[in-house]
């Protein structure tokens, strides 16, 4: 990654992280967008899978620090989806809107599945409701916001000509 691309990606990442802690609480939705997942996925597709896994681990640990009862679950989920996204980036990022939306949707849903299962804090019924009702809904919202984010941050995220 070129230094200019690195700076651009870092800027987009910071913007998305800030949005996660500002816009999300402002919206206050039960199924709100997860900008951390969007940020991690956007960074992951621009780095090697190993680096993506490391970034996912760090982001997950920082996010888990406010939820100490599931500490590590977010790190595990974020590591997994970051690595997978980096591995599958050629498939998903074909500059197709629907594919990108599906990418964000699956990424968020996968994150929730791993997070809930790894945390294992609720009974089976609650987990089922969470995984098959709220998580898809949240993933859909995240996908929509991810697409909007891609459109808005397109000037930043566009790779510089080689």
């Amino acid at each position: 990654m070129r230094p200019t691309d690195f700076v651009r990606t870092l800027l987009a990442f910071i913007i998305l992280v800030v949005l996660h802690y500002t816009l999300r609480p402002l919206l206050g939705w039960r199924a709100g967008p997860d900008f951390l997942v969007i940020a991690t996925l956007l960074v992951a597709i621009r780095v090697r899978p190993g680096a993506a896994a490391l970034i996912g681990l760090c982001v997950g640990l920082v996010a888990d620090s406010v939820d100490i009862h599931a500490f590590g679950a977010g790190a595990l989920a974020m590591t997994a989806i970051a690595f997978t996204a980096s591995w599958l980036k050629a498939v998903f990022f074909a500059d197709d809107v629907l594919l990108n939306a599906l990418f964000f949707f699956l990424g968020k849903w996968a994150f929730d599945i791993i997070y809930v299962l790894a945390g294992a804090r609720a009974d089976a019924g609650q987990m089922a409701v969470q995984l098959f009702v709220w998580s898809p809904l949240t993933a859909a919202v995240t996908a929509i916001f991810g697409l909007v984010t891609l459109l808005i941050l397109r000037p930043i995220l566009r790779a510089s000509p080689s």
Partner: protein
Amino acid sequence: MPPAARAFGRRDTVLFVSCLVLAFAAIQLPDRIRDPLASTLRQTILAPLVAIQSDAEQSRRSWLTRETREAQRDSIALRAMSLDAALSENDRLRKILGLGSSLKWGFVPAEVLQGRGVGEEYTITLSAGSRAGIRPFSPVVAPEGLVGMVKSVDPTMSIAIAWAHPDFRVSAMAVDDAVFGIVGAHLGGEPERYLLEMRGVPMRSNLKPGTLIVSSGLGGTFPRGIPVGTIIAEMKTSELWARTYLLRPAVAPADVSDVMVLLPARTTSGVQTVWKIGLKADSAVKSIVAAGDSLARLTRHDSTAAPDSIPKHDSIPKRDSIPKRDSSARAPRVTP
């Protein structure tokens, strides 16, 4: 367009597995290690983010509760407005009670009925009439001073003219200087229309701004000692033999809601002790009335009686000595 896919190497696999192991290890961390670690992360990397999240949530709460807060603020404002009116009315009623206890007898409390339509700017309708003992020309007073005079009386209500009425007149005097005059409405344009004039003040008398003017009791309609107003300034008029002063009225008719109507017996007996300001005026009035009487007697005697009877009058007591001095002065010249 994102960059093309890179090769998936052994190093990536190692990193990925290491991260997974670390994540699992984090999940399995005992509390004594996990809590300080999470706390450190919260206090370092996450601290600014948590701060802005707190601000964002506060903003959201403010936004969600804005209508409730506006309703509460409106309710409080409404209550505050009512409270001010209640306090003002309470204060006024206390003053009325105080005036009633000072008057003790010979008065009728009355409520000023609202009805300030066209032509009613200078008259007030009172809720008491002849059945309560009110008669025409009864003085209408408030705790602050003179309000006006009853003009017409019905059995259950009466009409009074306020001091702002063009026909209103009251004989008045300055408390401090015993200067007399006639007080009436100032018939100038707005906003001075709601001021008073004190006319007919002798040229030798100069009243200072702030001097309290009270009813003099002359004429019999208004008892002595009711505050009428305070001197604002002298007015420039074409009269060369008397001064005219502008007065700020003691009572604003628009603010009056409850008044006392003095009955004839009370008017006759006086109200000097009610407003506690008529004591000096009383003596001044007596001296002036006595002077007027003696001058009148002197005039009568001058026109009818012989010169040798003049020394009998109190008003010119020194006339006895004048002839003696003259006679003694002339005596040496007569003797030879």
